[in-house]
């Protein structure tokens, strides 16, 4: 147990440490892309971006910026040796076919059974926009979520059942949050680690039955 809740950089580092060496990984868009800062080359992790590339390197700076080389968040990136380009149908076939070992996504809510809600707030006037979120949630072998455990309104985002529209069913296996890491298996939620909060306190603030993971919490 650390001293306090994690920063998003600390969460990203934690996620990065748990990704097995040699994995093929998609980091979605936004916050999870921070994970790439903590993946040293010697671990041989290869990044996929769904707009048609394996072997994506760090964000491009200065003269490296090339408008034809962007990630799924449309941020200019770089190319590493051993990269490969392919078209969109091939890229999503790769994803849907279960060839990506891990993807890391943000979330509005994750349910105890692994259901994920991260594409739509459910607000009646919201314009729906899904991008590749459902494809990633459905396709990657392991879906890790990285999010704050509580919303700005203080309500937990790890919930018994999602109230926001779903992205994928029973797809999330690990949830990395500022207050703890949760392992989801067959409807059970095991707390692997906590940060600045006790397991008992977590149990009171979440509406989800928790167990302590073996060797954890």
């Amino acid at each position, binding site marked *: 147990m650390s001293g306090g809740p994690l920063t998003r950089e600390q969460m990203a580092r934690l996620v990065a440490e748990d990704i097995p060496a040699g994995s093929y990984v998609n980091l979605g868009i936004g916050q999870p892309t921070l994970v790439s800062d903590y993946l040293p080359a010697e671990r041989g992790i290869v990044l996929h971006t769904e707009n048609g590339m394996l072997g994506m390197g760090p964000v491009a700076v200065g003269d490296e910026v090339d408008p034809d080389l962007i990630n799924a968040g449309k941020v200019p990136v770089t190319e590493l040796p051993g990269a490969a380009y392919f*078209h*969109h149908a091939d890229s999503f*076939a790769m994803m849907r076919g279960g060839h990506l070992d891990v993807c890391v996504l943000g979330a509005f809510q994750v349910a105890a059974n692994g259901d994920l809600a991260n594409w739509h707030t459910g607000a009646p006037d919201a*314009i729906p*926009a899904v991008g590749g979120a459902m494809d990633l949630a459905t396709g990657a072998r392991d879906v890790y979520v990285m999010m704050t455990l509580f919303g700005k309104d203080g309500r937990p985002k790890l919930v018994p059942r999602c109230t926001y529209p779903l992205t994928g069913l029973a797809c999330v296996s690990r949830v990395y949050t500022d207050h703890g890491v949760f392992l989801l298996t067959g409807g059970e939620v095991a707390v692997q680690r906590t940060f600045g909060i006790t397991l008992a306190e977590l149990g009171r603030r979440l509406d989800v039955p928790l167990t302590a993971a073996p060797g954890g919490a």
Partner: protein
Amino acid sequence: MSRLTIAPGPDEALAGVQDGATVLIGGFGTAGQPMELIDALRRTGAQHLTVVNNNAGNGDRGLAALLAGGQVRKIICSFPRQSDSYVFDELYRAGRIELEVVPQGNLAERIRAGGAGLGGFYTPTGVGTLLAEGKEVRRLGGRDYLLELPITADLALVKALRSDRMGNLVYRRTARNFGPIMCTAAATAVVQISELVDTGAIDPEAVVTPGIYVDRVVVVPDADPASTEVTRMGQGQ
């Protein structure tokens, strides 16, 4: 497929577009976006178009300008809402444009299926979500799938790096994105290229789109710098 037409300019490349056409437009963000062809499509004045693109236009140019002119009846895309998709947003909220949102991989696969002559396919993506509404769900091999139908079009507008005189294409980096599949799914595929090379100058092992899929090319030598402006902060998928 007829033999390749090498059009003198974008306007000539778009001769014959009809009102009511379905148009596949390549690009993911600005990468691979056939900006000059989209502008030429706008200038045709064609109305009641159905547009298939990953997004629904950014800022005021390109697809956004086509939308602003009221030429598009319906858009099929995966991610319409972006920080600067205000043209689309306003039309949508005013009920002046129809929207079909499709998960990005299903969208790509539907276009591929259209080009490949398939009647449909079963995909796991979207099962149990709002986007499964109205779609057939079927259990196959112990897993639930949705039936998705092919997308074909009258026209595809695509940007590639280079073509030979038979229409064999190569692309550049992630600008490849939807181009290859869109060329296969349209009755007429129009491609803007940076460079036209002699037949034989492209390695047959490295051809990405064989010329059989390409009807017209037009050389657009250097893109307007503003059209290659990229977002440094990102803006969603």
